[in-house]
């Protein structure tokens, strides 16, 4: 015996079946299909009893936003760009005339002078002598070691203070 498919049962419930009489005839003699039909009926009744949920967020606006032009591409921006382009086109011949007259040596000289000043500063720093520390008789520390110890203490203090609340 061939049972009715889910599709046929759905169509029968929706009153869209091509052969409702044949389906009814089969249902009268088939307990299994009748039981499935009853399940479908109760499921649809349950679905129909659910309350209508309203959409909390607008769906259309985000889609419109997604396909909208980028925010920066406005009429004002387009007009400004067109004016700027026109200005560049007009200015190019003048600039081409003016550029060779600009003395670029000044810029290079400035960079060279800055470099020499920086080198001079580094030279000056390298010549700084660490003041000789008084020798401690009971501990033979060199001035370098003393300076490093002092810097280490400062480093520990600084980190301790600055990370005080972070390390809890």
């Amino acid at each position, binding site marked *: 015996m061939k049972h009715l498919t889910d599709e046929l049962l759905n169509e029968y419930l929706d009153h869209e079946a091509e052969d409702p009489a044949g389906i009814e005839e089969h249902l009268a003699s088939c307990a299994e299909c009748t039981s499935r039909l009853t399940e479908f009926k109760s499921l649809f009744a349950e679905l129909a009893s659910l309350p209508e949920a309203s959409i909390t967020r607008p769906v259309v606006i985000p889609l419109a936003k997604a396909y909208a032009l980028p*925010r*920066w591409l406005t009429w004002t921006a387009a007009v400004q760009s067109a004016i700027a382009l026109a200005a560049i086109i007009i200015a190019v011949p003048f600039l081409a005339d003016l550029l060779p007259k600009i003395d*670029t040596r000044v*810029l*290079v000289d*400035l*960079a060279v002078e*800055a470099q020499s000043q*920086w080198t001079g500063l580094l030279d000056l720093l390298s010549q700084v002598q660490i003041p000789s520390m008084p020798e401690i008789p009971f501990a033979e520390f060199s001035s*370098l070691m003393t300076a*490093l110890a002092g*810097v*280490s203490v*400062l*480093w520990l203090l*600084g*980190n301790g203070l*600055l*990370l005080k609340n*972070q*390390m809890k």
Partner: protein
Amino acid sequence: MDDFFRISLIAVLLTFTLVAYFLVVGALFNDRVTKTRNAIRHMPARAFWLGLVNLLFFGVIAFVLLSVAENAGAFVKGILTIPALVILAIITGLLSSGLTGMVSQLGEKLFPDLSAWKQNFWAAVILCVACALPFVGWFLLLPYVCFVGIGATILSFFQRNA
């Protein structure tokens, strides 16, 4: 004229290399950079002083080690150079993360409407150009950014996870 173009070309290439570097660091170490950016956003002053203290300290240590190594024999030279290079590598790592965080923070402030990578791209370009400004950029902005970056990276290690 040739010198001018050569310097300009080097500056442009260096800028784009740095921009690419910041983007790569941001992509590879996203968590660290995010924490660093949070530290920059919430504690810039503390990050600055922490960076100053640590960069000066480790800078002095590395400088002293390298200076002593220069006048020492081959064996001692090797022993002293390796820790100095390790210190410099650590500083570079902290600086990379810090500057990437700084770039990310700048991008968010300057270009809120752009996507994340575009924000970072343009912020890195702007930061590089700003730091290239003679004197003010070299001696004020660049050290400030470096100090804040290093300090923020150190702070990020002590940050509690949200």
